[in-house]
């Protein structure tokens, strides 16, 4: 019998591509997507290939004909210059096409202004980069947007000629590499043709050079006959090559080196991602953000949702290459390894002083010294009575997300070999970051001699199992240590403050009139629509001396019925900053204005901040007014919000206003009005206090500068004046009323600010300290109770004690945060510190973005204008809140750090004796707080005498006794006299005050 299925009978038919006239334009992309909920989907995306994606070179005319135009028929401007720069090798000029590795290893290079212009970023590369590193991707996007660098994103995977189909059996990486090569080749041919068509000389066609660090890719490029070079080779051919070469990541190089030596792993291997995810889901592993203790670099803590208290991570092995800020997964250690958080100060500097950066061999993860320090800890733990409560410890088993950024620091001079200082041999040095929580970074550099004594910027590239320290590379030098420019820039970089000048797109959003802009004289002008004319009111502003961005102004006047009319007028910034334009976007990224001692980094361009929006005296300005009718007992009868036009009569400083109020002879209307305000504000304050508002304290000092050189000359603590709380009370009033109003109008999307009640555990330590040392009880169950018990914490002999306790209590608080009302339940809206049910920021739109959003929402709530979709979307608002919360915190920290720096500078070369208080106590040192300068600093036992005196630490009673060559007994909250001098801290390269213990008691 014949066969059942003859071969020709059973024909296989694939969809015939030739039959479809558009077939060559269609391709598809297939991949597997795993969703968060655990679904696994096969995704097929159809790709429609086109031929009208321009090459964007100014040499080419053919692309212009077909390039797509926008709705108004305008062509996107061409990016790549017609005469790109040349190098020795490519004299005719060249365009660069980096592949993904090149960007991953050396994005810093591309950000240089010295070289790397006319770069073509391929879509393939861009997408690959996004998958590998989001921060780098964002930086690259920033680069492509800057016009001067001429980076062009070419969508090669959508262009017919440059699209490559993945071959069977080809890996994705190989396919992408091939796509890059194809694009490079196409560019080369395309440009040659373009130049020919224009009648140019074929010799003048710029070379298209592929940059890659992948050997195989380079070899294949040679074979395909396209220009390709490794980063190193390319950079080597540029001027200032040494400086640029340092910016290439050392990852690959280092690995090759070490492979050759086959060094053994020092750290435990991380778990696989799936193992971590399963563990976290099951609850056997925990995920959280890794924080390093500021006092002990070998101790980290991680707050996980599963437990109330943070888990402690002790020792290098357990920290397992986690760096402060990383999102890590930890495993709780068995109970016998639980420990108490260390009472000892351990600093990397003092521990591993003499390490050799170049030596890699024979080093253990934990040096002997470190081990000893830890042993002592354990011993102490064991010798402890049952009262000692060991806390659960944990071990890092994996890193979910690295939060590495660029770090500012300086080179550890001792790690630089003398010979290398002169020659330019490449060597490895240690870089000590300014942030003590960041471990030292090993950096290979050729410029060791030059960067000693400089503030430098570095990035961490990797931290392998076989390396004790993370490996990074040098980005750029900011300048000499302790120069104002370098230190300020360092600060801004450390706290991620955007300090670049406003781009042109932002400045284009400003009113065309510039400084000549005035409130339209005719009330028929559209600007006057729905605006109340309040120019007749006696409005004045009260601000710190020298304030230029005046956000707020006030007025008060008695009404015929015996009540008062009080108005708070806020600069109408939302009139000038429209939602979703470039200026709005920039402001939302900056989030807040940052105040440093000698510098202000504005959220909005100067023109608005200090002129058009600022409620300057004697000129008419647009404002957003909140007007209340208030009884003499400070009860609010009615409130009203309106856009307005005002004319401030005077801009007072706090001091001037105070003098005026105190001066009985001043009986003019303005002064009497201020007195009314003052009277009301006191009543408001009392009411707030009765409701349980906290009066907290943080040390605030002001650095006095010499007016011309702006060199710091003195440090003064800020004085508190009644006029300050006057302004504060009315701002609080305005904020609370506006919060209630916008919440009523937009229950889901109101921009509010909350301050969570701190968990009890935060106060445990402080409550115990107060109980043991002073017999005071700290009640924390409500803000009212806390406020009362803080009031009770007084020491009749020591008036400052109460303030000290308040300072310490402040540090136990949660930080307040912005949020979108739809994300929290109403009871969670509470502002703990102000004891207010609902709160927002409304009164400083010039310097805070949240206020600007509140303005827009309030304007919509009073039907002044329609609410822009951007301020209506919960998702968008949440993103905004998240960003401004971070920016806000950074701005505060930057401000504090700036003061700290200048206090150090002001004290430079001086020796002062001052009173201080013991704030925190360790087994080998203690922290003293000096109120006069608002500084706190550590005094180590080894600073007391040399050799370090023996000590006994009574942790239960917070007493540290030393014996031997210096006998002292120091206890918590004790008043001491310290000698303050300045010293250049080796560890961070910061000039810091150094305290020495002179004696106990008063001066």
């Amino acid at each position, binding site marked *: 019998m014949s066969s*059942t299925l003859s071969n020709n009978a*059973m*024909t296989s038919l694939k969809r015939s591509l030739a039959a479809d006239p558009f077939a060559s334009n269609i391709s598809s992309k*297939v*991949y*597997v997507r795993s969703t968060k909920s655990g679904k696994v989907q*096969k995704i097929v995306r159809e790709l429609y290939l086109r031929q009208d994606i321009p090459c964007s070179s100014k040499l080419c005319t053919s692309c212009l004909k077909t390039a797509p135009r926008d709705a108004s028929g305008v062509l996107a401007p061409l990016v790549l210059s017609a005469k790109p720069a040349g190098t020795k090798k490519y004299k005719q000029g060249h365009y660069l096409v980096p592949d993904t590795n090149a960007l991953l290893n050396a994005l810093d290079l591309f950000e240089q202004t010295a070289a790397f212009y006319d770069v073509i970023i391929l879509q393939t590369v861009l997408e690959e980069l996004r998958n590998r590193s989001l921060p780098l991707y964002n930086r690259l996007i920033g680069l492509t947007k800057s016009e001067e660098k001429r980076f062009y994103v070419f969508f090669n995977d959508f262009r017919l000629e440059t699209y490559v189909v993945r071959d069977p059996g080809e890996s994705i990486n190989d396919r992408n590499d091939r796509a890059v090569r194809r694009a490079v080749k196409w560019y080369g041919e395309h440009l040659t043709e373009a130049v020919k068509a224009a009648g140019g000389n074929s010799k003048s066609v710029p070379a298209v050079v592929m940059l890659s660090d992948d050997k195989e890719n380079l070899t294949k490029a040679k074979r395909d006959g396209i220009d390709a070079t490794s980063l190193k080779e390319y950079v080597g051919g540029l001027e200032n090559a040494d400086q640029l070469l340092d910016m290439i990541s050392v990852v690959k190089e280092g690995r090759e080196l070490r492979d050759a030596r086959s060094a053994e792993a020092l750290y435990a291997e991380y778990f696989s991602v*799936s193992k971590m*995810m399963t563990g976290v889901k099951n609850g056997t592993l925990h995920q959280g953000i890794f924080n390093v203790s500021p006092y002990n670099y070998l101790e980290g803590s991680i707050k996980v949702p599963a437990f109330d208290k943070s888990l402690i991570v002790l020792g290098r092995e357990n920290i397992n290459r986690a760096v402060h800020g990383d999102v890590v997964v930890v495993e709780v250690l068995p109970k016998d390894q639980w420990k108490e958080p260390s009472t000892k100060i351990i600093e990397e500097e003092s521990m591993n002083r003499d390490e050799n950066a170049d030596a890699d061999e024979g080093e253990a993860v934990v040096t002997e010294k470190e081990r000893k320090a830890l042993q002592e800890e354990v011993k102490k733990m064991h010798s402890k009575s049952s009262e000692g409560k060991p806390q659960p410890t944990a071990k890092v088993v994996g890193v979910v997300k690295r939060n590495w950024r660029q770090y500012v620091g300086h080179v550890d001079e001792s790690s630089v070999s003398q010979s290398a200082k002169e020659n330019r041999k490449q060597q490895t040095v240690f870089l000590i970051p300014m942030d003590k929580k960041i471990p030292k970074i090993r950096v290979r550099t050729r410029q060791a001699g030059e960067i000693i004594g400089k503030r430098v910027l570095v990035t961490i590239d990797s931290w392998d199992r076989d390396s004790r320290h993370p490996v990074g590379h040098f980005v750029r030098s900011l300048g000499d240590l302790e120069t104002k420019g370098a230190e300020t820039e360092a600060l801004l970089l450390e706290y991620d403050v955007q300090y670049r000048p406003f781009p042109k797109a932002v400045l284009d959003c400003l009113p065309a009139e510039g400084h000549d802009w005035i409130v339209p004289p005719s009330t028929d002008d559209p600007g006057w629509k729905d605006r109340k004319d309040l120019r007749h009111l006696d409005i004045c502003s009260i601000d710190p001396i020298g304030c230029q961005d005046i956000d707020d102004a006030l007025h008060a006047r008695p009404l015929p019925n015996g009540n008062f009319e009080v108005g708070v007028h806020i600069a109408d910034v939302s009139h000038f900053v429209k939602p979703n334009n470039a200026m709005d976007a920039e402001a939302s990224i900056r989030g807040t204005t940052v105040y440093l001692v000698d510098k202000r980094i504005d959220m909005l361009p100067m023109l608005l901040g200090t002129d058009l929006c600022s409620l300057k005296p004697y000129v008419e300005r647009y404002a957003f007014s909140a007007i209340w009718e208030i009884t003499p007992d400070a009860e609010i009868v009615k409130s009203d919000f309106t856009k307005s036009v005002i004319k401030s009569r005077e801009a007072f400083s706090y001091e001037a206003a105070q003098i005026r109020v105190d001066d009985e002879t001043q009986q003019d209307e303005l002064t009497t009005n201020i007195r009314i305000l003052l009277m009301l504000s006191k009543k408001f304050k009392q009411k707030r206090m009765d409701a349980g508002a906290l009066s907290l304290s943080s040390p605030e000092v002001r650095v006095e500068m010499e007016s011309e050189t702006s060199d710091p000359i003195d440090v003064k603590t800020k004085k508190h004046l009644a006029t300050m709380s006057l302004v504060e009370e009315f701002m609080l009033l305005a904020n609370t009323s506006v919060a209630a109003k916008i919440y009523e109008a937009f229950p889901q999307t109101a921009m509010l600010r909350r301050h969570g009640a701190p968990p009890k555990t935060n106060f445990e330590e402080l409550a115990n300290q107060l109980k043991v040392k002073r017999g005071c009880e700290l009640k924390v169950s409500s803000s009212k109770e806390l406020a009362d018990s803080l009031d009770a914490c007084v020491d009749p002999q020591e008036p400052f004690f109460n303030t000290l306790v308040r300072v310490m209590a402040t540090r136990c608080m949660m930080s307040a945060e912005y949020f979108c009302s739809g994300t929290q339940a109403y009871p969670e809206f509470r502002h703990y510190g102000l004891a207010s049910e609902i709160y927002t920021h409304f009164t400083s739109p010039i310097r805070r973005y949240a206020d600007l959003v509140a303005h827009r929402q309030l304007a919509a709530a009073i039907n002044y204008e329609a609410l822009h979709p951007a301020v209506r979307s919960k998702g968008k608002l949440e993103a905004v809140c998240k960003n401004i919360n971070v920016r806000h915190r950074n701005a505060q920290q930057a401000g504090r750090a700036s003061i700290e720096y200048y206090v150090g500078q002001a004290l430079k070369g001086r020796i002062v004796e001052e009173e201080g208080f013991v704030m925190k106590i360790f087994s080998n040192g203690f922290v003293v707080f000096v109120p006069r300068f608002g500084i706190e600093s550590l005094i180590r036992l080894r600073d007391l005498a040399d050799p370090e005196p023996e000590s006994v630490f009574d942790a239960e009673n917070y007493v540290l006794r030393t014996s031997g060559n210096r006998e002292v007994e120091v206890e918590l909250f004790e008043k001491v006299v310290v000698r303050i001098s300045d010293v250049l801290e080796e560890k961070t390269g910061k000039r810091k005050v150094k305290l020495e213990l002179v004696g106990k008691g008063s001066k």
Partner: protein
Amino acid sequence: MAPSSALQQVLLSPAELSYLHTSLASTPPIRPDGRTSRQFRPLIAESNILPGTNGSARICFDDGTEAIVGAKAEVEKSRPVFAAREEEGEGEEMAEGQGEGGERGRNEWVDISVEIPGMRDDDSMPVFLSALLSEALLADGGFTRKLWINRRFHWKLYIDILLLSQPLSYPLPLLSLTTHLALLATRLPRLKSEKDEDPMFDDDWEASVFLFPQSQTAKPPATLLVMAVSSNIIFDPSKEELAVAEVVLAVSISSSPSSFTPESEMDVGERKGGSLKLLAVRTIDPPSRLTHPGVPNVVNTATGGTATDNMEMAMAREEGVWKSPRGGAKRKLIAEMIRKVLEKGGVGEEVLDGLEAVGLE
């Protein structure tokens, strides 16, 4: 016995039926379309026609019947093991006693739906066909075991079978072959996680693995339709041929991994021959039973005959007058039909090889 109601009644006169029957019963049988008894209708087959599925196929017979099958896999959490005890009744159907570290599948991990135009999904025909097809798939438990990921997770495989054309002939072989082809082409994302972790998969589709790797002998099952007229065994019968069939069998086979023999199987004759393995056999009610018998001239008053009470007797006497088949099939005949499917170099092997060749392209 399975219903055959799906088939439209074949509109053939008793005389035509009789003619057809006689031709098929002669040696060698003469089939209306000229095929030999073992020859299949020419067909067009292609696989991976639906890019969104994990595997798909289309087969088109030259009589115009056409089917598409798509298989889609989803990750599902397995029910905890203790639940298995509660339903021991189903236990028999479930794959049992498979060692290999407790990798065992459950029948509920496969969901087969059959759609036939003009029929509701609860009509007997689609329900029966999907039962028949899943029976073959689930018969030895080897298939569901392939869907095991770890103790906590498994793939759930949805097989959607769609008959595109009217059911001109009995659609079982078409659907089965298409399903077979689709399963051959089915790929699952490659697992990256280990052991009982939450599964994580390689996002590269190229790296995905075949459900039935080409290197392994295990292949998805196929169900063939075999009929017999007197002692002649005929494969892949057409609609007209079925109208005169005396016995119709649906034989499910798969290529057998040499070491493996199914424990519980339907008790039907010899079960082995060559490298093929018999999974299931079902008899199908041949539509010929519903045909009207012819009336012999002797009893037909219209042609001058006389009516008789005993129609049976009269028909038995007359040669060439159509009478619908009665009674069961002979055991020997059924055994012979199965043997022909399973024997080395037999129809079964040829079909499987032919389909694999399509899958390979």
